[in-house]
């Protein structure tokens, strides 16, 4: 009823377009700034070893390696960024032309010159000692196996061209730009995910496609690159607007009533079926990946309740993962050093849930009275304390110290056995548990408890003044989070077959938090996307992802991604509507005002205020 009654027909005016600026009418300080950023980024990427380390991995056969890709995206992106113009709604903008191309080109050339400078320096000095990648191999790659002069000139030229191309993208019509984007992304996607796609296509018996696409030594062949680009272009060209149309149809259905929910349920069922059927065809690599994604999804869903809903920044979340893993290990493994009842896995799971809930209460009780930063620091400490307890000699008669607990049997359900050597079975188990976790999150968010969590996140003092027992309610969030983490721990034990304190580093907490933040805090689809993108593509703390080549730079990429997201899209990839409002309050209010959703009487009352000032002092 709400969607229908809202006046929503706001249409923006046609924007005014001013003539383009003269080619040399530049904001030179800005151009220099972006150039310096580009140059330092490129030097950093080369010295961090990506150029050399990823050189053997080919994107396009003989022509282009992943190492070079890690470098050349910089001038292209910066060229695009520097030529961009922020246009506010209803404001005039400049026509794009030579001016933009010139600024993009200069920024690109300056970035490239960074590498020219690096070649010069590498030629003259030897800094091998602190900088491992200050090597002949790097220099050779930088110079394209020619002499240094060639390399110096080439990088400036490459930078210039790529910067100009990046800026030139603004000259294309939006449709053309979209087409180019789709073509490039498709080629890169197919090339970078070679292992995964090969594995996938093999499962479906489509080996001839991968045989055609990829060269024997890896990478796309030149012909397949061209074919792929053309096919992607054609699909994009003829498919244009179809997705939009479908979306509009679904949304239109929603207005008429019930259509949206029906469409959602249908999508959910189809997605679920796909997830059940897909692993039958996919190979071991993909299934292993999916199993890892699932374990981290469970963890992220739990942390999402704590951080995303209740707003408690818990940096020691790994403690509950560890508690779950160790409890399951002790209860099921015959090698458990202290006490080994050798229970079946599902019985152990029930006990584990109880133990995790207890751990949540015990750790939560002293911590929960604190707020904000203090709470974050204390939880960080507790996370480490738990790991050190498992590691300690004092408790090693029960937990095995650094040797951990080994020989954990597979989870046996009678008709179905879940073991690490069969990642498909792990995936099914994790899928079932994730479904439970999603259901729990979804139900709790729309309950008395969920509303109390949100109120605490918004303003804890007021929530308390409104009759919410903040200590109990926050503790409840902690306990629910701990129980979901223990699910993940129980699966982890059965999958890996052994637990060691070193599996529960602080890094795990941080990575789960990054998954939640990047995906979209407080939003279940966001958390799922976050887990798939980060754990699936980049990999977990110790688990490889799709981009195995990047595993050495995983933490670097995690960090860079986190900073990037915080700066540009703090609400995450799939944002929660509330959180977006919180972080973009001004824009949101402006939009609401433009759509006339904000109170009309606000302006009226402001106007009336001028008439008579309210009486203040007594007569």
């Amino acid at each position, binding site marked *: *009823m*709400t969607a229908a*009654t*809202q006046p929503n027909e706001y249409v923006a005016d046609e924007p005014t377009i001013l003539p383009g600026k003269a080619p040399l009418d530049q904001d030179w300080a800005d151009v220099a700034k972006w150039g310096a950023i580009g140059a330092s980024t490129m030097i950093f990427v080369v010295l961090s070893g990506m150029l050399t380390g990823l050189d053997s991995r080919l994107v396009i056969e003989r022509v282009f390696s992943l190492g070079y890709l890690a470098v050349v995206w910089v001038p292209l992106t910066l060229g695009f960024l520097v030529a961009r113009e922020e246009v506010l709604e209803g404001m005039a903008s400049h026509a794009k032309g030579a001016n933009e191309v010139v600024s993009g080109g200069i920024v690109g050339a300056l970035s490239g010159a960074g590498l020219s400078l690096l070649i010069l320096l590498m030629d003259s000095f030897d800094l091998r000692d602190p900088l491992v990648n200050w090597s002949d191999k790097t220099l050779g790659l930088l110079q394209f196996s020619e002499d240094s002069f060639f390399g110096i000139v080439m990088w400036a030229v490459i930078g210039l061209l790529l910067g100009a191309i990046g800026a030139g993208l603004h000259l294309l019509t939006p449709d053309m730009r979209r087409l180019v984007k789709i073509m490039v992304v498709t080629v890169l996607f197919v090339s970078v995910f070679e292992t995964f796609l090969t594995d996938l296509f093999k499962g479906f018996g489509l080996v001839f496609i991968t045989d055609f696409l990829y060269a024997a030594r890896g990478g796309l062949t030149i012909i397949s690159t061209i074919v792929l680009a053309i096919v992607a272009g054609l699909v994009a060209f003829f498919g244009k607007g179809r997705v939009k149309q479908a979306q509009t149809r679904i949304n239109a259905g929603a207005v008429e009533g019930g259509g949206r929910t029906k469409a959602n349920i249908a999508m959910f069922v189809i997605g679920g079926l796909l997830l059940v059927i897909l692993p039958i065809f996919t190979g071991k690599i993909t299934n292993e990946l999916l199993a890892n994604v699932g374990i981290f999804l469970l963890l992220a869903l739990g942390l999402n309740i704590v951080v995303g809903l209740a707003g408690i920044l818990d940096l020691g979340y790994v403690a509950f993962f560890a508690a779950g893993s160790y409890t399951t290990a002790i209860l099921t493994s015959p090698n458990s050093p202290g006490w080994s009842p050798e229970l079946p896995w599902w019985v152990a799971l029930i006990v584990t849930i109880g133990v995790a809930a207890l751990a949540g209460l015990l750790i939560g009780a002293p911590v929960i009275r604190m707020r904000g930063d203090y709470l974050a620091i204390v939880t960080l400490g507790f996370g480490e304390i738990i790991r050190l307890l498992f590691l300690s000699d004092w408790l090693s008669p029960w937990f095995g110290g650094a040797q951990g607990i080994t020989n954990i049997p597979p989870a046996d359900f009678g008709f179905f056995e879940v073991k690490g050597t069969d990642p498909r079975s792990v995936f099914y188990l994790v899928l079932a548990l994730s479904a439970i976790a999603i*259901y*729990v999150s979804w*139900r*709790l968010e*729309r*309950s*008395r*408890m*969920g*509303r*109390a969590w*949100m*109120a605490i996140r*918004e*303003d804890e*003092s*007021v*929530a*308390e*003044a*409104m*009759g*919410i*027992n*903040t200590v109990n309610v926050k503790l*409840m969030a902690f306990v*629910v989070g701990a129980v979901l983490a223990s699910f993940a721990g129980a699966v982890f034990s059965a999958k890996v077959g052994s637990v060691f304190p070193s599996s529960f580093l602080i890094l795990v907490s941080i990575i789960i938090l990054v998954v939640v933040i990047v995906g979209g805090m407080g939003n279940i689809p966001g958390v799922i996307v976050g887990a798939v993108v980060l754990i699936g593509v980049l990999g977990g703390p110790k688990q490889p992802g799709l981009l195995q080549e990047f595993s050495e730079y995983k933490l670097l990429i995690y960090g860079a991604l986190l900073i990037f997201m915080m700066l540009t899209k703090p609400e995450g990839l799939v944002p929660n509507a*509330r*959180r977006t*409002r*919180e972080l973009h*309050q001004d824009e*949101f*209010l402006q939009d*609401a005002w433009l759509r006339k*959703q*904000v*109170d009309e*009487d*606000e302006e009226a*009352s402001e106007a*009336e*205020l001028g*008439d*008579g000032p*309210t*009486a*203040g*002092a*007594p*007569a």
Partner: protein
Amino acid sequence: MSRLLEIEDLSVTFGGLHALNNLNFHVDEGEIVSVIGPNGAGKTTFFNLISGMVNPSAGDIRFKGDSIVGFDPNQVTALGIARTFQNVRLFANMTILENVMVSQHCRTKQGLFGALFQTPGFKKEEVEIREHAEKVLGFFGSRLVGYRLEQPASVLSYANRRRLEIARAMATKPELILLDEPVAGMNPKESAELTGLIGRLRSEWGFTVVMIEHDMNVVRDVSDRVVCLDHGEPIAAGSFEEVSTNPEVVEAYLGRPIEKSRETDGAAT
């Protein structure tokens, strides 16, 4: 009429500052009492003490005969004292409906189990919470209901935010409601309307009201009794006419006439 709230020799100090000093005060059931006084007189501190957000240094606060000193804010609210805030503090990113639903927390009891298994008890309670929320919002006419229910509190105008704050306090099902400057920032028309509503809080909902207010028109129209605070001490109490003509009150607001202040200064030295 029975005593609803009794305050005895209440003092609170922040460092060396006596924010309230030996305050004695009482509210009878069904009264509307206004607390006035210049800025910094300790009015909001007085509310913070009653609602448990600040603990007194000395003295006693009794609600329906039992001391509530040392109670947490949520316990005080559960006993039946609700409040609003001077600088409107809504849950800005929750919807208007949710703002009012969440403040019924202490009157409801369904926990995790009910929510997870969607027990009949849970569903029934959710319906009741929602019905009560809509009833409370309906008190303010059409402003906070209809399509507004699902909008975030942050899109409301200033006056409507104040109204929502009152609605949120009403939804906790209190006996005593503390309003901290309910009409601040409203125009005369809105103030007059809200004055009427404050009267109806007593007549229709049976709330006892204690209100901090600077707008003397509102104070005059609605209060049974007025108490004036200055520097943490009550300087006058009684009907509006008595208090507003009390020379000490006028002095607290407007200062002393020049000649008189010279006289007293001279006498002091």
